């Protein structure tokens, strides 16, 4: 039995009720539906806002983070007034302002192998608005094991992808990507950046797909991958097929319970940009400052991209972007004391790895990057 709509709900949703494909029955289906949104960031923001406005009866929100100033360029569910608040609380406040008739469940925790089944089992549809490979594989496997549709979206700089992975009716995420790329090959948005409006485009597509699945209308993106490029303004599609040997959704799957996804992907399950090269290889900004003040000769190598120099720079540093480092090793001297740095320490940790494997030993990674320098040593520099 579908729930009834009150007079005020009928007025609120009148533009839906006028569409024959939705109508009163469709709106009642939306009211009866529950959707779990994993991540309340760039993608989760438009997803949760539009699902709430559309009248999806129950929305679950999973996130463990707090609202940061640098989120507001794209995470439109949050605002200046909720800076420093829990993201799930900030999001709940906003969507209940849009629509107080719906129910919002919040999970202020990371989505992990331990809690994923418990959180997800009560929902009809799962929406992947995460930012890292371990959580994407976890969301996929949970969706396959619980037999639920996983509405996928992913973004990088100007590129977006979207699909609906529903293993009962088509391929899953692992059918397309059986294995994650090696750590460090694909930069995260925290390192590589993202056009603020891009998650709006992709998240809105995810919300559209979720509504279509609930209403049972149209052609969902099952078995199709949408590829969007904002610079070229192109939408392209490729066909996805079920992998008969898929480790999780084939008839005889190898993976039948949740695994350790951080170990599987070789990276932590969150997109943090504070990098460390590991014990003994890091140097703090204040230690580096006192070594330089003491007159020590240290070669500074900036592995950021050239356009980042306009934001902040360290005097005397040589710029060798990470992607070009391997080709410029001959310009560096293994006998010289060296410190590599980037924005926050991740790219330089990879640079250090490369240098060490090439035989360099007198090299350190500036922990926290030039941002740590800006906070601890030279506050005239901006943090970005």
């Amino acid at each position, binding site marked *: 039995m579908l729930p009834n709509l009150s007079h005020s709900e009928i007025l609120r949703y009148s533009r839906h009720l006028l569409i024959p494909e939705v109508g009163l029955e469709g709106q009642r289906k939306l009211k009866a539906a529950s959707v779990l949104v994993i*991540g*309340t*960031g*760039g*993608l*989760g923001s438009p997803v949760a806002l539009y699902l709430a406005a559309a009248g999806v009866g129950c929305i679950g929100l999973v*996130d463990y*983070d707090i609202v940061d100033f640098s*989120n507001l360029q794209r995470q439109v569910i949050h605002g200046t007034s909720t800076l420093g608040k829990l993201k799930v609380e900030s999001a709940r406040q906003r969507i209940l302002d849009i629509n107080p008739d719906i129910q919002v469940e919040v999970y202020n925790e990371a989505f992990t192998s331990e809690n994923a089944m418990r959180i997800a089992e009560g929902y009809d549809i799962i929406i*992947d*608005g*995460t*930012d*890292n*490979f371990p959580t*994407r594989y976890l969301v996929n496997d949970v969706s396959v094991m619980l037999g639920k549709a996983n509405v996928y*979206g*992913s*973004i*990088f*700089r*100007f*590129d977006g*992808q979207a699909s609906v992975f529903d293993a009962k009716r088509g391929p899953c995420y692992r059918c*397309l*990507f*059986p*294995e*994650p*790329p090696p750590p460090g*090959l*694909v*930069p*995260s*948005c*925290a390192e*590589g950046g*993202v056009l603020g409006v891009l*998650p709006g485009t*992709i998240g809105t597509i995810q919300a559209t797909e979720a509504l279509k699945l609930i209403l049972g209308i149209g052609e969902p993106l099952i078995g199709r*991958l949408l*590829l969007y490029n904002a610079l*070229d303004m192109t939408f*392209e*599609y*490729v*066909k*996805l*097929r079920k992998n008969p040997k898929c480790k999780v959704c084939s008839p005889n799957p190898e993976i039948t319970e949740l695994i350790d996804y951080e170990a599987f992907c070789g990276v932590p399950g969150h*997109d943090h940009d504070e990098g460390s090269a590991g014990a003994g290889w890091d140097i703090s900004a204040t230690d580096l400052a006192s070594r330089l003040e003491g007159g020590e000769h240290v070669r500074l190598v900036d592995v950021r991209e050239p356009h980042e120099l306009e934001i902040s720079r360290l005097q005397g540093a040589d710029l060798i972007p990470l*992607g070009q480092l*391997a*080709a410029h090793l001959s310009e560096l001297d293994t006998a010289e004391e060296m410190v590599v740095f980037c924005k926050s320490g991740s790219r330089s940790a990879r640079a250090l790895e490369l240098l060490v494997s090439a035989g360099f030993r007198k090299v350190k990674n500036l922990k926290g990057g030039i941002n740590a320098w800006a906070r601890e040593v030279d506050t005239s520099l901006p943090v970005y």
Partner: protein
Amino acid sequence: MPVLRIPTPLRTYTQGQSEVTVQGGTVAEAMDELTARFPSLRAHLFNGDNQLRPFVNLFLNDENIKELQGLETSLKESDRLMLIPSIAGGRV
């Protein structure tokens, strides 16, 4: 000549180019020609046995070459190849 679309994360290795024309009668020949021009791309796409790495998806028009004849799939002048990357961004 067939065109290959390069995804944003790999454009560092193609001097920023988003599309390159390739030459060859098969996908393998086209990829050999491409990686001869951009040698640093090769290690990102192929493993030591000259097979595509498991996280690399190469589509010919709208079909994964795995569903066709793999690297031996033949190419026509009007064909369009697309490398589909794993990207993970979204929450942050």
